[in-house]
Structures are given as structure tokens and as C-alpha cells.
């Protein structure tokens, strides 16, 4: 075994990847099943001169990471369903003020306190529409532990490139699994940092669209002395109620993701070449689905899987293509159909959608998915 190979849990990999991506601030609050991420960060961040702070509540944790990021330090928080709900107010602030940061949500059953120690994929829609108002969204859903490391780094990169909060959605299984992993060399990592202004302070506007849809971002204390607000604002960062400016700003923010969708969408095909039945899956559910595909193939069933590593934005064009060709699409989810509802809109009546919605807190067994595959024939 290579020297660099060792055991990691999903939670530990989030922490390790965050630090490798340059994260030097973690504002946290204990909540199952994400607490291990906070614990690892509290051990590891001071070693690299970074800050771990346990705030008084989830709202404060979210506020603190926005503050730290504005001061130029890449920041992470981690939580689970109820805490994710509490953070939504300040997540909205981070969208509005365009402050890069990463929010890791280790999903558990809900609503309310729900199933604190059990598995769910209950916050797919909360990740998209949790805060009030319209905004772009990027959410990543790793299914394997190697992927946790890779996608955590990607989450930081997206947040820095597009100047926005990014959601990293783990589920309880992914956070708590451990496996032996050989992590990539740090020198091989691609780390992105926010674009800094190239103009002197007197010519700087924090939301200047002259440089494209993602304005360059000055950090606090670097001489730029600008204003940041959660109110609708113009390019100077000061509040405006001018309908045209507000409209243009909202459209630009949505465009940050929409016009870069091909650089963000991320999915994996498995056994798709001749597939007539297609499974759409994400997160830990995709692991069981993959076994089901293998077992169905042994029975001669032409089934394949499209797995979303990035759940928002979805690869719309690819999905539309499959919806018009597939005999059936099966969507196993550990919620009541949060992705299925969206896919049904793409599919219209061109194919049938078979939903598997388990919310009892235990993984969807491959044999269950296999039975639905057989039904679909």
C-alpha cells in the first residue's frame, strides 16, 4: 500500500479538502450528523494558522463566514437540515452581496428535528430555494469518498470564480463512511481564487459589470473602502430602488450560473450506451442504484444510470435528450420526490417517470430498485 493511503471519513475529507483549497476560517455550530466536520476543523485549522470558531447559533456561524470571506479569508460552515434552515437568512445575504463561501449540509430526515442520526436527501430543494428571493444556485452531491475531496475543492473554486455561496450536500452515509483513500498530490490540485480589482481604489466599484457578470472583488482592509449591503444596490454597492438597476442586477446574478452552465454541470454515465431504462440518481442513493444496474444487466435488462455530481444546475440538455429517448426513467431519492418533480417537467409526457421515495432513514436497497427496473420493462 502506498504511504499516502490512509483511512478517511467523509466528514474528515470535507475538512481536509477545505484546508487544501485554502479555507482558513470555519464558523460552526454543533449538529448531528455534521459535527465531525467542525471537530476536524477545530483540530486542523490552528495548525495552518486558520481560525475555528464555534458560534452561538447556526445563524451566527453563517454570518461569521461571510464576514471572514469579506476580509479575504476562504470560509466554510457545516450543518444539517434544521441548521440549514436557520442559515438561510444569511445565505441570502451572501447571494445578494456576492460573497464567496461554502456551506456543507449533511442531510438528515425532516421536517423539523426529524431524524437526526439517520440518512436522507431531504434538502435538495432547500438548497435551491431555501432563502427568499431569486438567486443563482450551485449545489454538489458527492456519492463516493474520493469524490467528497474532489467536489469540496470544486465547491470552493465555484464560490471563488462566481463570487457566491456554494452548497455542498452530503448525506449522513457519505459523511460517516470511512474508506482507504490515496489523495491527489497537493501540487496537482487546481485552486481558484477570487478575481481582484485591477484598478486603483478611486476607480473601483464592487459590483462593476464592466468586467463581465462576475465583478472583481476587493477584500476589506486592502485600501478599497467600499460599502456592502443586503439591500438591492447599484454598482457602487449603495442601496438603490431604481427598477431598471434592480432588474438588471438580478438578471446578472442569475446569469453568473446560467451562462456558465457548461462549466458547472457535472454528471457521470454508467452503462448508458444501449440503455433503454435510465436511472437518475445522486449522493449515496446512487451507490445502491449502481448495484441494481449491475444486477439488472446480469438479467439482460438494458439499464443505465446518469448520476449527478452537481445537482444544481442540472444538465438540462442531456436530461431532455434522455427524456425523449428512454423507455422509462427511474428516480430513487431519499425524499418525497424533490428531483422527480423537476424531471417530470422536463419529461412532459415523453417517457414515464418511476419514483422511488424512501424517507424512513435507511438506504434504498438495490433489490428494491431492481424490482422497479423490472416493472419498467
Amino acid at each position, binding site marked *: 500500500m502506498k504511504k499516502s493511503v490512509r483511512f478517511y471519513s467523509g466528514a474528515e475529507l470535507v475538512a481536509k479538502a477545505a484546508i487544501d483549497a485554502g479555507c482558513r476560517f470555519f464558523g460552526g455550530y454543533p449538529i448531528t450528523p455534521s459535527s465531525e466536520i467542525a471537530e476536524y476543523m477545530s483540530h486542523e485549522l490552528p495548525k495552518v494558522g486558520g481560525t475555528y470558531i464555534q458560534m*452561538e447559533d447556526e445563524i451566527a456561524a453563517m454570518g461569521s463566514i461571510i464576514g471572514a470571506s469579506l476580509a479575504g479569508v476562504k470560509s466554510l460552515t457545516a450543518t444539517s437540515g434544521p441548521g440549514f434552515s436557520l442559515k438561510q437568512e444569511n445565505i441570502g445575504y451572501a447571494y445578494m452581496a456576492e460573497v464567496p463561501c461554502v456551506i456543507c449540509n449533511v442531510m438528515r430526515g425532516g421536517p423539523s428535528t426529524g431524524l437526526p442520526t439517520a440518512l436522507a436527501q431531504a434538502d435538495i430543494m432547500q438548497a435551491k430555494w431555501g432563502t427568499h428571493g431569486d438567486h443563482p444556485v450551485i449545489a454538489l452531491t458527492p456519492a463516493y469518498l474520493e469524490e467528497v475531496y474532489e467536489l469540496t475543492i470544486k465547491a470552493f473554486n465555484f464560490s471563488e470564480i462566481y463570487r457566491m455561496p456554494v452548497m455542498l450536500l452530503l448525506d449522513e452515509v457519505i459523511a460517516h463512511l470511512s474508506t482507504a483513500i490515496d489523495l491527489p498530490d497537493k501540487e496537482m490540485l487546481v485552486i481558484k481564487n477570487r478575481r481582484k480589482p485591477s484598478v486603483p481604489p478611486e476607480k473601483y466599484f464592487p459590483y462593476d459589470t464592466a468586467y463581465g457578470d462576475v465583478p472583481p472583488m476587493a477584500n*476589506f*482592509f486592502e485600501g478599497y473602502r467600499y460599502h456592502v449591503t443586503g439591500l438591492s444596490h447599484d454598482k457602487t454597492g449603495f442601496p438603490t430602488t431604481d427598477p431598471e438597476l434592480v432588474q438588471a442586477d438580478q438578471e446578472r446574478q442569475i446569469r453568473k450560473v446560467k451562462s456558465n452552465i457548461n462549466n458547472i454541470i457535472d454528471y457521470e454515465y454508467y452503462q448508458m450506451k444501449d440503455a433503454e431504462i435510465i436511472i437518475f440518481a445522486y449522493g449515496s442513493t446512487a451507490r445502491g442504484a449502481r448495484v441494481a444496474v449491475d444486477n439488472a444487466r446480469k438479467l439482460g435488462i438494458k439499464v443505465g444510470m446518469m448520476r449527478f455530481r452537481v445537482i444544481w444546475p442540472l444538465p438540462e440538455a442531456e436530461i431532455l435528450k434522455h427524456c425523449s429517448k428512454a423507455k422509462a426513467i427511474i428516480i430513487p431519492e431519499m425524499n418525497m420526490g424533490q428531483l422527480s418533480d423537476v424531471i417530470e417537467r422536463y419529461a412532459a409526457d415523453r417517457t414515464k417517470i418511476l419514483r422511488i421515495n424512501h424517507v424512513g432513514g435507511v438506504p434504498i436497497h438495490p433489490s428494491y430498485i431492481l424490482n422497479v427496473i423490472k416493472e419498467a420493462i
Partner: protein
Amino acid sequence: MAFEYEKYLRMDKIPHLWCPGCGIGVVLKAMLRSLENVGWEKNDIAFVSGIGCTSRAPGYIDCNTLHTTHGRALTFATGIKMAKPDKHVVVFSGDGDATAIGGNHFIHACRRNIDMTLVVVNNNTYGMTGGQHSPTTPIGYKTSTTVYGNIDPTFDICMLAKAAGASYVARATVNKGKVLEKYITKGLENKGFSVIVATANCHTQFGRKNKMGDPISSRKWIADREIPLEKAREMKADELNDVIITGEFITDEQERTRWENYNHPIHEYTDAYKKIIEKAQKK
């Protein structure tokens, strides 16, 4: 020589949005004079605020300014301070912002004794939203949500800050701008969490509903109720009804000796965290 407020103001944002005669202007002036007193570089200062009339103050100051969500200013400020401990972080908040929706953040910022200064402008009401009662509206007074008289007991923000662990706590009224300036300056100089409460008039909302709808009568109401802390200490509890106690409730020197705080470590939070970094790196 007249004080050059222009040095610290974003003059293109003036006139401000506050009502004529509002007390917040006095507090802003006291703050700007205090900045001059401590001699900090504008680039090194972040002003943070929440939501409400007071929270609009940072927008007028030519520093790094952050207008956040309602009640949450201290959480953003804590992130900034921990990210850049050698920079200065100052927070503006109103009574509703700091002690109702932001009450939890308020006591915990005090508890950490993190090196920041919080100025709470207490005008006894939610001015911006139409004059509803706040945690500091005195008993019996009328607001748009207590037309029969307020029955909610009031917070004494200074007592709260003191009990929670802040290392400099003082209150002055907007009738005495120079005293306010002195306290804010001491707050900025204090290495730890400082809370300065500025009792201010909101004649437009709180005043109007209590027969003092102009700045003069609202400020007279404040003046009539002001009792210096030294005098208040000698008065009986039942004499301290509907009063505004002013003075320095706690200074850093007191912090180090007072018995009330027996379980509080006498450290400032960013310093304590620096020691954590040293420990972690030695291992």
C-alpha cells in the same frame, strides 16, 4: 479649529436619511471624533451594522462598511475580526437590533470579550418600521403596538453587557455629545469587547406617541430622567423607576478585580486564539 468631519464622511451620501433632529447624528459625530482621537487608519477599520435607522450609519463613513441582516451584525463582525485580528472592527446597532433579534449574538460577543466596539443607539423603539415597542421601551409608554401602554419589562443594556462579560461598558445620552465621545474613545481603546449605549431621541415615532413629538421635548424627556451612576448607587431601588442611568458601568480595570465575574477568564478572544494556534503548531 473646527473638526473636519469631511475627513471621515462619504460626502456624496449626505444628506443622510435620518429625520431632522434625530439623535443618531450626535452619535455619528461622537464616533468620528473618537476615530480622530485614536488615530486609526481608515483602511484598517471595518464598520458593521444590522438593520434599522442606526444601522444606516456605516454607509456614511469612509471606511470598509458592511450593512448586514437584522440583528446579525456582531456575527459578521466576529468573522471579520477573527480573520484579521490586527484590524479594527466597530459595530453600530439599535436597541431592537442589538437586544431583541440580535440578543443572543449580543451576549455571546460580550462573553467572548472579543476586541470590538459596539455602539447601541437606544431610542426605545423600532423607528424604521413605524415605532413598535422594543426591549427598551419603558413600562407604561405608548408605541404603535402598545397603544394601551407597554407591559413588557425593559432590558438595561449596560447591565446585560456587564453580566455577559464585556470589559468596557458605558452609557451617555445624545444631550451630552462630548461625554459620548469620551466613552466611545475609551471603548475603541479598550482591548476587549466594549459596549457604549447612547440614549437617543426618536421624536418621530416614540416621541410622537408620548406627547413629545419634536426633538426638543424628546431630548428634554431624556434630560429629565438622566441620573449619574454614582448618584443612582445611593438611591433606593423604587426611586429608580423610569430613569436613565449614565456613566461608566465597567472599565477594563474593574473587569480585572470585580468578583461578579469570578468564572470569566480575563482574556481577550483573538489573543486567546493566537495561543491556541501556537499550541496546535507545537504538537
